[in-house]
């Protein structure tokens, strides 16, 4: 197959009710031939039953029974399609119920975010929320899709006004790469094929943009961080003394001979080999899963991190983070939570809520410190032992964590270290 060298691109779609998000995804899947005939038949039958004209593309993204009955999306769903250039994973996130929780989840692994704007309404509160979350989660690329241009006579003026509205408020945000596209998902204008209705738009259609986004530098290739997941001790012939540290490189590159430090113990050694079942490697880079052996027999276990001697993360017991609260139970002041950070697990508490953010106005609320579902706040976290952390903007893996309620085992919050 020709796609051997193809990369994987993960993107998230954010939109509010009726702005055409499901139609856009349906259009991408349909025009990229990811829809099978039996799926098409089923959707055509449902469209007819509901009295819709033609095939309602939005029905391709229907999921659970309740969602079909209520015509809404409850939870993040994942969709897939492949073109001759790339494989795509879409995290399709609902725009209303538990919007922050779902959008944050979808955004956490995304290379790109599509933000949909209904051309009839322009920038609305939801648009600001979506842009804020894309910036908070440091999604490397944002594509603003001005949809339903067919209902605004494909007007260049309408489009330009929306672009400047967006640029005006997003100046306060930290988004590196923003692109704009006028489209009609319903008719397929500028989705897969270039629109003939908008000759004034000189850019490429959405799919071409997604196929050519430069994602090679989305991952941190500078700071080598190898969190140890488990220790491999085969104890069988040929491998009696083998002691391999299994993990996935969070960032950076490792090579045999590199001088390394095992954190938090501080023991130093050199990398002896990097192994896979297909043989030893001359180098390993993120996000490869490998097994590493060291030249010295030192104590290493799950939760430890192997890093280069000349480039170490900071071991810290107290740090600030932007926290998204994801659970119906509100945060209990000074309560103990379990913190999951890479392969490390410790007890932690929220020592202080520095300020909360109103994600519609981006205002800081310094008097309100209740963390409820969908709250976003800057907090100070204190842990029982040091964690080997980096700032989230430098490293999405070693800069992120989740909090677990020790009493219920539920995941209650997601944090980004600042």
């Amino acid at each position, binding site marked *: *197959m020709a796609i051997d060298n193809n990369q994987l691109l993960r993107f998230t779609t954010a939109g509010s009710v009726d702005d055409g998000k499901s139609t856009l995804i349906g259009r991408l899947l349909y025009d990229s031939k990811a829809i099978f005939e039996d799926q098409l038949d089923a959707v055509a039958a449902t469209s007819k039953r509901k009295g819709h004209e033609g095939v309602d593309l939005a029905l391709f993204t229907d999921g659970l029974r309740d969602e079909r009955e209520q015509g809404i999306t409850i*939870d993040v*769903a994942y969709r897939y399609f492949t073109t001759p250039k790339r494989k795509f994973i879409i995290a399709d996130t609902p725009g209303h119920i538990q919007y922050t929780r779902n959008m944050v989840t979808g955004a956490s692994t995304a290379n790109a975010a599509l933000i949909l704007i209904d051309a009839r309404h322009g920038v609305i509160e939801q648009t600001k929320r979506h842009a804020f979350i894309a910036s908070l989660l440091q999604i490397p690329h944002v594509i603003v899709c001005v949809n339903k241009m067919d209902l605004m006579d494909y007007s260049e003026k309408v489009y330009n006004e929306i672009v400047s509205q967006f640029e005006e408020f997003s100046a306060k945000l930290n988004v590196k790469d923003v692109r704009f596209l006028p489209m009609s998902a319903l008719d397929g204008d500028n989705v897969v094929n270039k629109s003939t209705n908008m000759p004034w738009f000189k850019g490429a259609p959405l799919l071409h943009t997604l196929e050519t986004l430069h994602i090679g530098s989305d991952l941190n*290739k500078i700071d080598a961080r190898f969190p140890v997941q488990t220790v491999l001790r085969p104890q069988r012939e040929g491998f009696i003394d083998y002691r391999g540290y299994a993990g996935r490189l969070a960032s950076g590159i490792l090579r045999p001979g590199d001088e390394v430090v095992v954190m938090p113990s501080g023991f130093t050694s050199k990398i002896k080999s990097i192994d896979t079942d297909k043989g030893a490697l001359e180098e390993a*880079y993120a996000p490869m*899963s490998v097994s590493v052996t060291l030249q010295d027999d030192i104590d290493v276990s799950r939760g430890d991190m192997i890093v280069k001697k000349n480039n170490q993360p900071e071991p810290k017991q107290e740090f600030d983070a932007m926290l998204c609260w994801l659970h119906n139970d509100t945060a209990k002041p000074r309560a103990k939570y379990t913190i999951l950070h890479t392969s490390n697990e410790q007890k932690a508490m929220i020592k202080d809520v520095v300020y909360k953010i109103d994600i519609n106005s981006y205002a800081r609320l310094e008097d309100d410190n209740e963390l409820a579902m969908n709250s976003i706040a800057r907090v100070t976290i204190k842990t029982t032992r040091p964690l080997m952390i980096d700032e989230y903007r430098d490293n999405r893996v070693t800069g992120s964590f*989740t909090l677990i309620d020790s009493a219920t085992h539920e995941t209650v919050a997601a944090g980004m270290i600042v």
Partner: protein
Amino acid sequence: MSKYYLNYLDELESEAIYILREVWAQFENPVILFSGGKDSILVAHLAKKAFYPSKIPFPFMHVDTGHNFPETIQFRDDLVKELGVELIVGSVQEAIDDGRVAEEKGKSATRNVLQITTLLDAIESNKVDCAIGGGRRDEEKARAKERFFSHRDDFGQWDPKNQRPELWNILNGKHFEGEHFRAFPISNWTEMDVWNYILRENISIPSLYLAHQRDVVWRSNSWIPVSEYLTLEEGEKVENKKIRFRTLGDITITGGLESDADTLEKIVDEVSSMKQTERGNRTDDKRSESAMEDRKRQGYF
């Protein structure tokens, strides 16, 4: 630095290995649910890589409906021996004999739904706290909502509206006694990815996936294999066709398609031009629009 990126199959492989290692690190007594189908064979292959040079540290668990293709059972036994792993078999026939479940009646009776009881019994009696499956999100609309680590309550039930959020690659496998998890390391693979990878890695699969001559009858728009469990209905006649199976389930409900694809290369070519979904030949999914969701809620794979 541009050379430092993985192609999509390597990235999917690395993600699956990461998940399998997390299962091993976070659970006391995990098993791999092994059906003999290509997806569970893929999971076994990835587990071999994840723990190399150690052996796969998980036993295989097979829910045996008694309505298997003989080739599947042979393949299972050979693979278990080759890998040196333990095999746990949960028998639907035994559950029927013990009166735990009753055979379905009627024309379209199958043992598909009966597997749920046997699976949950086997999980409970073996004190399994994580069952690793080959479920993929592209297979079916209910599966599109699955987490990598999917929580089941102490009745083995899935609550799709109340799932734990899963962010970045941080997996939360914390649970109380009696509850268990299902883990899905190949969630992000599509059918095409699976075949491309099987071809690339030259993974051996049951001969049923390759085109072969077989006695079959035409029923529900596919070729159902003749077996001791098949009762011919009026107007049906046995024909000998060159067919292959795109998925493998019970011999009673798995339909084949006419094909000349007798090598992995030809299968990849054929699958890439398929016009029907993979599970379109499975009568178990055709019962209603939410057949999969309903079974999953009760504890199905």
